[in-house]
């Protein structure tokens, strides 16, 4: 019988591990408990032993490869009686039993505010109860209220179940009824809006966040909460840059180098940053100072199936356009395979996102905090422009930029943009500087 062994989480919440050493190979017999592979994880370097005795049919992954927790690492042929086969299948889906644990009849009870007659429990504060409607739990069946509030609501033709109670355990008080009336129909209507039903069998799907999505979410919110975002947009005619790139594209392609516009853009950005150092700085509020960076570590936003990754080209100022092109290719390829080291994601001083390669002209990029500026490159397209009184076809590149207005003034961004667009418009100046 075939047995698939999946890489287990051996250290409380691991998501992946790296293959360090294989102890077995195809065709080899292994005994239960024998080491199969040595894995390096965030927490430990450990031998992974075989749960079964059998013969190795196939090993998955080479030394140095990253393996996701839960993915198959080895396939064994085990001499199986039926009982053993059943057990092996059960092993593969250990969590399968939990699915039907939610009992429908209990479900309606969850989130229901108990009436006073049903139980003596009153929380010391009503915090938990007040937050309940926001969680999307089913609407209360019957609310607690004082008799006078109930009578008042009845007199005024109000449904007491729609009134938010602020008394102990969410009890509706006289004051709540009065205030509810004052808030008017719009407020009441919003309360009647259907709440999402989190019943597991309906048409929504709750998908747990991946570690990466959690990190992205945290960083994005941190940036928006910690900075004063301001954006400017402009476009530039890059006919000369297109011609320059077209001229050398084939030549470098022969050497296996993909010459895109991005390395030119990086170079133009660095030259402009040198002229406007505050955009390559950081605000240190704790010590009330601006920290100017004498290095230009350029983060490049890379779209991957798991989400956005921003690897960093270190000391990009010391690299030629071709060197930048090579490094870009390498970083984005490894970003796709999630093979970047933590070090390659750190210490960026400025970020460029070229979303235009997918689509869109202008955008409001979110600053890669604690950096102070991010440059967004839109889609290059042909547009009619006016040159020397004539309408001609221009190759237009849209540029968007967000800065932290706390330390970067609008005028300074405009000056940066003028220089940056100037380099792109007349690319040879980049190489004269």
């Amino acid at each position, binding site marked *: 019988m075939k047995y698939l062994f*999946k890489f287990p989480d*051996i250290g409380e919440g691991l998501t992946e591990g790296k293959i360090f050493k294989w102890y077995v190979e195809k065709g080899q017999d292994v005994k239960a408990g024998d080491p199969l592979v040595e894995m390096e994880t965030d927490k430990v*370097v450990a031998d992974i032993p075989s749960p079964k005795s059998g013969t190795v049919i196939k090993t998955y992954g080479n030394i140095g490869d990253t393996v996701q927790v839960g993915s198959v690492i080895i396939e064994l042929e085990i001499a199986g009686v039926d009982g053993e086969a059943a057990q092996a299948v059960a092993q593969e889906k250990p969590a399968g039993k939990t699915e039907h644990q939610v009992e429908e009849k209990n479900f309606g009870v*969850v989130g229901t505010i108990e009436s006073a007659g049903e139980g003596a429990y009153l929380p010391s504060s009503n915090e938990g109860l007040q937050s309940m409607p926001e*969680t999307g739990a089913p609407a209360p069946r019957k609310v607690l209220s004082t008799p006078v509030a109930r009578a008042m609501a009845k007199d005024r033709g109000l449904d007491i179940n729609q009134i938010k109670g602020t008394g102990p355990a969410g009890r509706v008080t006289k004051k709540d009824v009065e205030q509810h009336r004052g808030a008017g129909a719009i407020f009441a209507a919003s309360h009647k809006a259907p709440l999402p039903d989190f019943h597991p069998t309906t048409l929504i799907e*709750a998908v747990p966040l991946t570690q990466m999505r959690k990190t992205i979410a945290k960083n994005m919110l941190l940036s928006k909460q910690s900075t004063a975002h301001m954006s400017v947009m402009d476009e530039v005619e890059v006919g000369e840059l297109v011609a320059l790139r077209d001229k050398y594209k084939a030549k470098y392609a022969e050497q296996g180098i993909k010459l895109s516009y991005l390395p030119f853009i990086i170079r133009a950005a660095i030259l402009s940053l040198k002229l406007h150092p505050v955009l390559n700085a950081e605000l240190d509020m704790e010590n009330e100072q601006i920290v100017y960076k004498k290095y230009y570590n350029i983060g490049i936003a890379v779209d991957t199936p798991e989400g956005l990754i921003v690897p960093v080209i270190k000391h990009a100022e010391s690299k030629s356009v071709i060197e930048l092109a090579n490094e870009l290719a390498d970083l984005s390829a490894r970003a796709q395979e999630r093979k970047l080291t933590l070090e390659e994601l750190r210490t960026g001083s400025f970020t460029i996102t070229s979303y235009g390669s997918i689509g869109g002209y202008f955008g409001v990029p979110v600053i890669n905090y604690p950096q102070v500026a991010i440059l967004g490159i839109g889609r290059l397209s042909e547009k009619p422009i006016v040159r020397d009184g004539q309408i001609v076809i221009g190759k237009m590149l849209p540029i968007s930029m967000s800065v932290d207005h706390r330390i970067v003034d609008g005028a300074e961004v405009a000056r940066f943009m003028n220089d940056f667009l100037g380099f792109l418009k007349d690319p040879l100046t980049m190489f004269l500087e």
Partner: protein
Amino acid sequence: MFETYNPIDDKLYKVIDNAGKVVLKGWNNPLTDKELIQAYRDMLYERTADTMAVNFQRQGRMGTYPPNLGQEAIHIASAKVIAKDDWVVPAFRELGVYLAAGASLMEIFWYYKGNENASKFAGAPHLLPISVPIATQLLHASGLGFSLKYKKEKGVVFAYVGDGGTSEGDFHEALNFAAVWQAPVIFIIQNNQYAISMPVRQQTRSINMAVKGIAYGIPSVKADGNDFLAMYDVLSYAKKQASAGNGPFLVEALTFRRGAHTTSDDPTRYRTKEEENTWLTGDPLNRFKSFLNKKGLLKTLDDKSLEEEYKLKITKEFEAAEAAPEYKPDEVFATMFEQMPDELKRQKHAYESYLAGKERQK
């Protein structure tokens, strides 16, 4: 007997050296040959079970587990001294003690597979649950000891803690309480040199752990925790004292955690191979084996075949734990309050949707 082992002099009570030679002058062997052989078998059983537990964890068949490797002498000596009336208050690294108190290996595995129900230890009415919050269990031990005394019941309490636990306030409160009330509690500090990654020299400025007991007026002894015979002597003496109404006793058992803190820990990041090797020469099982060999007691005992026999037995226990029911998510919420508060209901609700979503994602 232990009057000359004042912790202030930092004297170590030790019976045999690393080569298994008796080095304590005037020592009389208190155990029969049969008892000595059984103790060795028990140590080997604990070690085999413990090694296999780590192996099962690495196969993804068990949750986080704290290895006992290198501390078996303390456990099996305790096991030999603990009687039916006595109570056991564990920390979480005393496998051999739990087994002696009546827990089954199946329950231990079941517990580390995440089932809280395993802590009920059906066959061990005097064994408290494994305590992960450091040193909190010592307060329970002192309370338990006080209760035994108050109710004039038989038995003493064996309470365990690590070197790191001595820095917790609970440790000091428990010692003081037990001393003031002269409660029959034996505090056993397994000083295994590391509190996760924190070496003991950074844990305390005291010359040893035993002096901490002296401060509270508790007779205390520092003993070689890798020497089964030393541990047996000091624990039997402690029990005699506590049973006789002389109040608590503290034992510092000097040992070395040869394994990781838990299966989520990598000791190579904070200690050297040299240090590990130094302690390896004093491994409790090897030392005791050398002692028994000198007496010619192990002639008929074959470690290898014994281990094979144990492995089969242990595998059966593990398979029983795997076949046992899983912990239901609602049990996490159900057991704390008689009537579930709304906030907890909300959490339960959210967790159930989360699990259902996770399930569909597979």
